């Protein structure tokens, strides 16, 4: 049985030679098909098409488009002002504003990287001006936007739902409590950072009138998360329908009510959406092609044997090793490809342990979100560096407490499956 070493050598060989992951997966599929004596480029192309040809996956471009429009059209800005009125008056208040605003904006946008640039470009300069530790402020922006793919809507969850053939809506619902726990965890971490430090002065007082005023000005913006979450949770519409409605809604509000989204913003918003979609779904199609040969070569069975030996019969140890594996992979690989490559291999093993695929998917995504801020490869980390003009090395030093908080939250979610499932079980099948 030499297929597993061949597969690993091919995939990692191509990736380390800096071949883009989508092409590396395609080449790996070719190598595997050759070794299995089933050489057929047309078959591989066909599975790429089959991987992309999916109505549920269409939620991805629509959620990306909604995010693009709300970030250029003044919607994100108004949501941030609400968060500022709510908790801008305590010591280091803008830090809490960052976390709360990320959670609210995550409730509309499906892309963590877009959120990082939206929130960071507004809040980071203010924090720096107010005398906050710039490294800590940039690290907090990065860490709090990892909530994007955990709090619904979430593009990785759309992908996982399609791979695992489970309800995307139930995955979305499963992410709500883990996302809240992560938000609270980051705020606790920030509290310990700012406590007793003179550079974080207290400014102004809490005023209900100011909160009300900001809420009125942001009424149409705040209504957007309500539509999306409400529509999805009440089971009125599918994820794709909610996504297209939110894109159209964001367009109408920012173009005709706020009048900040102009004609000149349209083409960049559309093209950025297409670029983001193509990158994700091209990897998705190639991963589907590779998955076919991975299954044919019985690689999941081999991996299952290794994991079974490591963890014995207990799901506790199994999830421990899965988390360790994913944290290592997440350090060097972006969320989407890691999810696409590993989910089809790990899901059948998780099923053997009797784990619910919804629970397993949420844990995988929470884990890989921590990977978004771990050096050396962390897309959010890079965006935060770009906004703050701080080097990757400096921000990496400032972010480690947040990474530890993320890992603690990950283990809470892993070993208390209730956090994921309690809301999921409320919605009818």
């Amino acid at each position: 049985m030499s297929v597993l070493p061949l597969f690993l050598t091919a995939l990692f060989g191509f990736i380390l030679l800096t071949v883009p992951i989508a092409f590396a997966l395609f080449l790996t599929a070719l190598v595997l098909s050759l070794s299995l004596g089933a050489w057929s480029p047309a078959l591989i192309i066909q599975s790429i098409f089959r991987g992309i040809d999916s109505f549920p996956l269409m939620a991805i471009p629509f959620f990306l488009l909604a995010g693009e429009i709300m970030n250029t059209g003044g919607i994100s800005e108004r949501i941030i002002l609400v968060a500022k009125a709510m908790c801008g008056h305590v010591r280091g208040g803008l830090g809490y504003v960052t976390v709360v605003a990320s959670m609210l904006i995550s409730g509309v946008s499906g892309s963590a990287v877009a959120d990082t640039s939206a929130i960071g470009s507004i809040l980071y300069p203010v924090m720096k001006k107010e005398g906050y530790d710039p490294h800590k402020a940039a690290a907090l922006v990065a860490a709090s936007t990892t909530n994007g793919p955990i709090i619904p809507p979430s593009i990785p969850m759309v992908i996982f739902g399609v791979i695992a053939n489970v309800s995307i809506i139930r995955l979305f619902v499963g992410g709500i409590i883990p996302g809240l726990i992560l938000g609270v965890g980051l705020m606790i971490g920030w509290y310990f950072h700012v406590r007793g430090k003179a550079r974080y002065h207290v400014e102004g007082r809490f005023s209900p009138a100011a909160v009300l005023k900001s809420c009125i000005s942001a009424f149409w913006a705040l209504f957007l998360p309500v539509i999306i979450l409400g529509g999805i949770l009440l089971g009125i519409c599918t994820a794709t329908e909610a996504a297209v409605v939110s894109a159209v809604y964001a367009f109408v509000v920012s173009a005709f009510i706020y009048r900040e989204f102009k004609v000149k913003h349209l083409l960049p918003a559309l093209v950025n959406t297409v670029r983001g979609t193509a990158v994700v779904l091209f990897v998705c199609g190639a991963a589907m092609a590779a998955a076919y040969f991975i299954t044919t070569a019985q690689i999941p069975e081999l991996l299952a044997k290794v994991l079974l030996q490591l963890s014995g019969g207990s799901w506790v140890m199994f999830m421990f090793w899965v988390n360790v594996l994913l944290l290592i992979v997440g350090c060097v690989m972006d969320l989407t490809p890691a999810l696409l490559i590993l989910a089809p291999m790990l899901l059948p093993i998780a099923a053997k342990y009797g784990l619910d695929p919804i629970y397993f998917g949420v844990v995988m995504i929470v884990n890989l979100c921590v990977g978004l801020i771990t050096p050396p490869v962390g897309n959010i980390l890079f965006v935060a560096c770009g906004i703050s003009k701080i080097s990757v090395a400096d921000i990496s030093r400032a972010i480690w407490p947040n990474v530890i908080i993320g890992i603690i939250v990950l283990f809470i979610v892993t070993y208390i499956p209730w956090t994921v499932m309690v809301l999921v079980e409320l919605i009818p099948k």
Partner: protein
Amino acid sequence: MAPESDAATPQTLSLVSRVMDTVLSYVVAVLLVAMSGTVFGNVVCRYFLDASLAWYEEVSRFLLIWIVFLGAVIAYIKGDHLGIDVIFMVLPPKYQRMVVLVADALVLMCLAIMFQGGWDMAIDSLESGWVASSVPIPYGWVYMVGPVSAALMFIQCLIKTHADIRALKGVQP
């Protein structure tokens, strides 16, 4: 992420990239608006007019396929495609340039095979007269975007390879 090729590409070649980028940008923007309109239109019909458009799902899926394949070309021109360069970054510059060329060669091979496989599949579908169930669109035309985008990315990769060879030789623009 694959390293950006430096400015070694002569002007005519970079003009080819720019034209391709601009034309494709307008095409995908129109396709995305059409896809959003189709799906949103169906939501409106279903919830407010209590009627469903029979053709919307197939048409929107076809549009998504075209968007992804043509978008992949734009993403390739912009160097968006996800990759890993951790090990690569610690290599000395001379070896980096050699690794880049090996990667270029692999991507060229990959695209050539994609073109061949995609072309065979599209032609087979056209000849078999396989048509979508709700609209008279032959599947062959849906699949034709595969070889088209492979060919466009092949041209882009040739331009990049050309620049990378010049960089290896130490030619400055």
